[in-house]
């Protein structure tokens, strides 16, 4: 199940978002408290984290920076009522956010942004999975090659198979049975 974390000091914002996103079938965790949101990063793996920009105890960019350390794979979004240039620059440069959304928001806009963030998250996860698979396969291949080399060194020619014209395998007569 795709898990999404929402952080906003205003409870009504959280319930409006939960309401709006409910038809999408994502598991949504809302937090008004930054400390609690940070704590839940230990318990859940989020695909997307959406944070308010201005909050009483910590600003959204600081929170997302922490979140990035704890869950680098979660895609980060800012939802802000405060669209000035400085806050955007901070969000992009420091928290490396994927999207900067503004309040008031539009259903299509926010759903599309989250969907594309989820896609990015899944793509990255798949990438990582494939990379692991490739690395695993490469170590297997390398081990096999080394074994072949070792055999060839001990018994030169052992790794080569001699065949007749019709394809049947030729066994050296000198070889002990």
């Amino acid at each position, binding site marked *: 199940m795709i898990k999404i974390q929402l952080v906003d000091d205003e409870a009504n914002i959280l319930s409006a978002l939960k309401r709006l996103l409910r038809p999408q079938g994502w598991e949504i965790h809302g937090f008004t408290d930054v400390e609690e949101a940070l704590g839940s990063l230990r318990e859940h793996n989020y695909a997307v984290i959406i944070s308010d920009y201005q909050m*009483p105890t910590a600003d959204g960019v600081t929170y997302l920076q922490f979140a990035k350390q704890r869950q680098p794979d979660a895609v980060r979004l800012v939802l802000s*009522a405060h669209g000035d240039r400085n806050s955007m620059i901070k969000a992009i440069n420091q928290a490396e956010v994927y999207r900067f959304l503004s309040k008031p928001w539009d259903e299509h806009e926010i759903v599309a942004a989250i969907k594309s963030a989820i896609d990015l998250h899944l793509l990255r996860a798949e990438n990582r999975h494939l990379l692991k698979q490739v690395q695993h396969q490469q170590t297997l291949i390398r081990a096999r090659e080394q074994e072949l080399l070792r055999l060839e060194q001990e018994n030169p020619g052992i790794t080569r198979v001699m065949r007749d014209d019709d394809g049947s395998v030729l066994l050296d007569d000198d070889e002990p049975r």
Partner: protein
Amino acid sequence: MPHTDMSEREQLSARLEQANRQLLQSEKMAAIGQLAAGVAHEINNPVGYVYSNLQSLETYLGDLFRLTDAIDSADSVADLQSIKRNIDYDFIRTDLGDLLAESREGIERVRKIIAAMKDFSYVEDEAFKLANLHQGIETTLNVVNNELKYKAEVVRDFGDLPDIECILSQLNQVVMNLLVNAAHAIEGFGRITIRTRQDNDQVILEVEDNGKGIAEEHLTRIFEPFFTTKPVGKGTGLGLSLSFNIIEKHNGRMDVHSTPGQGTCFRISLPVRQPATEDKP
């Protein structure tokens, strides 16, 4: 000769009075300008969720109409029941109440902010009238809430106050100056206490913060026009001097106690009734 002298002086003092009024108004506008960005934020939050809730409401209504329209077309009660389950009727039913209550709360907040801004921008309201100081403080808090809530917890320590004879919009401006200054003095997150008391025929208003305090060499200068320690563009240096003028005009007193590193307390005392002789012509 003395006659022309007099009229000249009168003319000059009328011009001075006029200039003072303009200065007061421009300081008010500058302060409001600084607050405007904050107010936009404060309004965008409730507008944000109310707008979002309206979109959810539209979805809910679509679902509910699907059910009611089916009353005519459905073959059996079982069909209707299946639609009802399908649209998650029980959830919609309980959530609608919350949706409406939260949205109403949002609209109410916007209304309050707008009303507070209006209270602030009165220009012509120059007459002394009986007014409730606590109401003025609440109005002011509504306007500056955004400046404060990320900086400090606001504690209201209100006593019983009679209505006082004052120009409330001007006192609001004084309170706003003190609150914004208090917030600026706080590094990190602090506390601002607003205290009111009656003391015989005076009312006392205190605004106290636990911020960085005012250096002793600045303490004697803070009421001077254009004196500011804030960075360029942050303060006009007029806030406290105009506040001082306003309080003087109300036949009140304003003083300050500050301990660097511990905080600052501004104390204002105002007469409940303006002395009759000082009444404006």
